[in-house]
């Protein structure tokens, strides 16, 4: 592999690594078909990495129209969802499989 081909590849990997580095991580739990915490505060105008741990045995679908996110999380698994950058405000989300109980909001401030 010549230097002229190697350099762009190394640069790409370096930039990709940079891009992934430095995103604040926040965590949510699903327990008894409820989101804990039901209110999550995150910094506004910042892209964050949300880890959702499903502590129940049954799957849940994390969904939000305001955030434009939907992801099925199997029982006992954890999911990675990227959110933002969000303008300051409140963004509700719910569990599609248990919408009456699994409800929460992300507050960007």
């Amino acid at each position, binding site marked *: 592999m010549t230097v002229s081909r190697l350099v762009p590849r190394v640069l790409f990997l370096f930039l990709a690594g940079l891009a992934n580095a430095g995103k604040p991580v926040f965590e949510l739990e699903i327990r008894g078909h409820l989101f804990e915490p039901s209110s999550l505060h995150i910094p506004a105008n910042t892209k964050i990495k949300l880890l959702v741990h499903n502590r129940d045995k049954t799957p849940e679908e994390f969904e939000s129209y305001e955030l434009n996110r939907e992801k*099925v999380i199997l029982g006992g698994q954890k999911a*990675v969802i*990227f959110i*933002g950058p969000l303008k300051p405000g409140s963004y509700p989300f719910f569990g599609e499989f*248990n*919408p009456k109980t699994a409800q929460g909001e992300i507050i960007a401030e």
Partner: protein
Amino acid sequence: MLSTSVIIMLREVLEAVFLVSLFLSVSRTHGISNRWLVIAVPLGSMAAIAYAASLPLIAGLFDGVGQEISNALSQFTIAILLPLCLLGHIRALNQTSDNNTLLKLGMTTVTALALMREGGEIYLYLSAFLGVPEWRSSLYAGSSIGIGLGLSIGALFYFWLCSFSARRTLLISSILASMIAAGMSLQGCKMLIQADWMNDGQLWDSSGLLSEDSATGQLFYALFGYEASPSANQVACYFTVLLLSLAVLLSTMFKTSNAIKTRATQPTP
């Protein structure tokens, strides 16, 4: 549990059912047989079960965003194949050739992919919650109602499309297919944004006009991939696919109609 099951089943069934109804009605315009459906439905159903069963593996790929990437892949594939299928139908209307293998292959693939995605979620939901004894009866009732409603809406859609002349059905179907393909690509972009492979943003918020939470909003979501607050990437992708598809399909319809007129005016030997 009952009302939740109705809504979930309805949402999942609607997306696949619109595609199948569209295919059946355009196939009718030039007498193509529907035997491809006999292969597509079992194939899609098996793919759905396989997808649901391998979800833990898929979800872990690409640093935890494997689900998003596989969803986006199937959505973009449908977005490309759907207008191509309509192109095949438009061409077939004017040919005497009986060889529609490629066309049937296209429709089978699109249907199977749609069934895989929607069926996968239905299978996950049912298999999980059927294991909870106190919810079983409401789960059965709700799912039956939801699936039944979805199939009824699909049937209505099919009969509405068939109520026109062959050429008008093709024209309306071409426009609808372009909008569905555009919606699919918008949803594909949503998956890439969720996976952090594409940037997020909010170009506008039309939830005041039409909320995604409403019945009409859900219908528009199933049919056209409606998003109340899309990002710039999503909007650009939507209109690119829509305009490209409309341009190709409508120009082909126009060219073939001219070809028919020319043939009609030429003296028979």
